[in-house]
């Protein structure tokens, strides 16, 4: 208006826009940046494995068995991370193995996500008896020892990539369900759901249109955790011989194959284990980081 009102305004620091705050939080979050960086490298390596990999992952070269990696005595730049007991290039197999781990993580999280999110939404939205039944399902699921049941079922129906994904997908949904149930219960009491109801929206419509976008944060965070969980479980199953079958280059299977030569060539298990550790670590860091930066108070 006019200058008569100017003196009344109290200068305030300009409030940064929400997206700017978010961007700032992301870049200031060390864990998220480190995790995101490692994960990006692994994902790129997996995506461009055919271009990056120096050899064929299945090509055996019995003359060049257990060549050590380049930094050890007897290593050479021909095989940067050495070769395995069948003379296959380790770096090549690790790059292709990343594809398996990421595929398992993504596919399992997708299947368990669909199951868990649906159950969580239904339980949280309808409450009452429906909620009791779903809580009972969750409790029952938690009582089943995951690794043991996964091993048994995979063994019974025959191990393959698809079986592992399906079995893990049908076992790891409970955290999705619990988290989504709790968030839905909280959101249900908020006004906008009532507003949608008042406008005559049906229950299913309300669930999908109003709740899912608001639950996106929790869903992404749980999805990262379950991806990491699935990747470790697949590695353990493959390590025990009941997961991915040879000659596929699963990292867990590579550790298992290297185990026979544990006494003589320990790096055969060290290297795939370190990759597994880095992948799971980076996914966990990204998940924790996303939870921190999207939390209302910005921390914990």
């Amino acid at each position: 208006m006019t200058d008569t009102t100017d003196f009344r305004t109290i200068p305030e620091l300009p409030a940064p826009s929400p997206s700017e705050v978010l961007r700032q939080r992301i870049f200031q979050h060390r864990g998220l940046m480190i995790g995101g960086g490692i994960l990006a490298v692994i994902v790129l390596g997996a995506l461009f494995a055919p271009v990056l990999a120096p050899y064929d992952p299945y090509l055996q070269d019995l003359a060049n068995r257990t060549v050590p990696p380049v930094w050890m005595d007897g290593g050479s730049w021909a095989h940067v991370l050495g070769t395995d007991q069948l003379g296959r290039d380790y770096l090549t197999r690790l790059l292709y193995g990343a594809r398996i781990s990421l595929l398992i993580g993504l596919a399992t999280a997708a299947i368990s996500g669909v199951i868990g999110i649906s159950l969580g939404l239904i339980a949280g939205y309808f409450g009452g008896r429906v909620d009791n039944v779903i809580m009972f399902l969750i409790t029952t699921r938690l009582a089943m020892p995951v690794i043991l049941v996964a091993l048994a079922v995979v063994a019974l129906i025959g191990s393959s990539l698809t079986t592992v994904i399906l079995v893990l997908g049908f076992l790891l949904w409970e955290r999705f369900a619990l988290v989504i149930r709790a968030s839905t219960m909280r959101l249900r009491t908020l006004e906008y759901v009532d507003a949608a109801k008042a406008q005559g929206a049906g229950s299913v419509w309300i669930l999908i249109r109003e709740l899912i976008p608001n639950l996106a944060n929790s869903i992404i965070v749980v999805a990262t955790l379950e991806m990491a969980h699935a990747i470790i479980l697949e590695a353990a199953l493959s390590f025990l011989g009941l997961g991915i079958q040879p000659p596929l280059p699963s990292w867990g299977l590579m550790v298992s194959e290297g185990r026979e030569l544990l006494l003589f060539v320990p790096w055969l298990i060290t290297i795939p284990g370190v990759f597994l550790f880095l992948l799971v670590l980076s996914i966990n860091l990204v998940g924790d980081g996303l939870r921190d930066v999207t939390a209302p108070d910005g921390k914990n």
Partner: protein
Amino acid sequence: MTSLLSIQGLQVDIATPGGTLQAVKNLNLDVQRGETHCIVGESGCGKSITALAMIGLLPEKARITAGSILFEQQNLACLNEAGLSNLRGNRMAMIFQEPMTCLNPTLTIGTQLTEGFLRHGKGNRKAAYERAIMLLEKVGISAADKRFHQYPYSLSGGLRQRVMIAMALMCEPDLIIADEPTTALDVTVQAQILATLSELKSEMGLSLIVITHDLGVVARIADNVTVMYAGEAVETGTVSQVFGNPGHPYTVGLQKSVVGSADRDSQRLSVIPGRVPSLVGGLTGCRFRNRCPHAIPKCAEADIDMSELEADHTYRCLRNVSAGRPEMTGGVL
């Protein structure tokens, strides 16, 4: 005569993601023995932070950056944690706002009443028990022995606040700070609690600082009052001075927003328009000017000092608008 508590130039800063927030700025406050002093203001004006600073329980991100808090000649702002905890609950005690959450759910009332007494070496268990029972009866709790052995869940909010008062009195403190002691309670219970508080105060000769946003509470119990706005004291004096002859437009606005005051006929409350400014970063000039009907360009130029309106009655405003000027009593804010 020296004051029991004397706050000089107190400044409290809070670190926030957006920058430093000046929660309390250049606050002076004196409380004599036997006095009841009320600190009034809207929420977020720095009342509670002031109270926490007095008892040395500021949240981690808040820091006293200037000034002194003299309690019986001891500067609390310079005291270390050990020194403070010897005073806390002993020479000065605090009563908090939320009686429902202020008691530990897993310990009996008796344990919580007596532990401070035992900690400060006031006597043995038997003495602690006897004093606790005596005080429980004094604050108006019947069947004191039964309550002593109960857990908080079996007590109503009003009873819990009475327990909190008894707890504050356990070590015969000189000063009790009550932060919104009645806000969370039913109206009928509020009156009873206030009556109990002022009765005990005169009986035991202690000083009381009551933090509140409720002018009804002030009128009922206070001797002196300090009005705070946006971290600053804007007016201080006796109750009759401050509310009979207000010097600061904010005090006037507060009075008008009380039920049954100015707009009695319309049964509506007048509300001060606008909001408290963000205290992040440095602010110069009068902090109320964006909501003030009397603001002039000079209000924005420099910080305003307290000036004296009459003996013991000071206010922080450039415009001497108090003396029955029509816009102050009848004007609309």
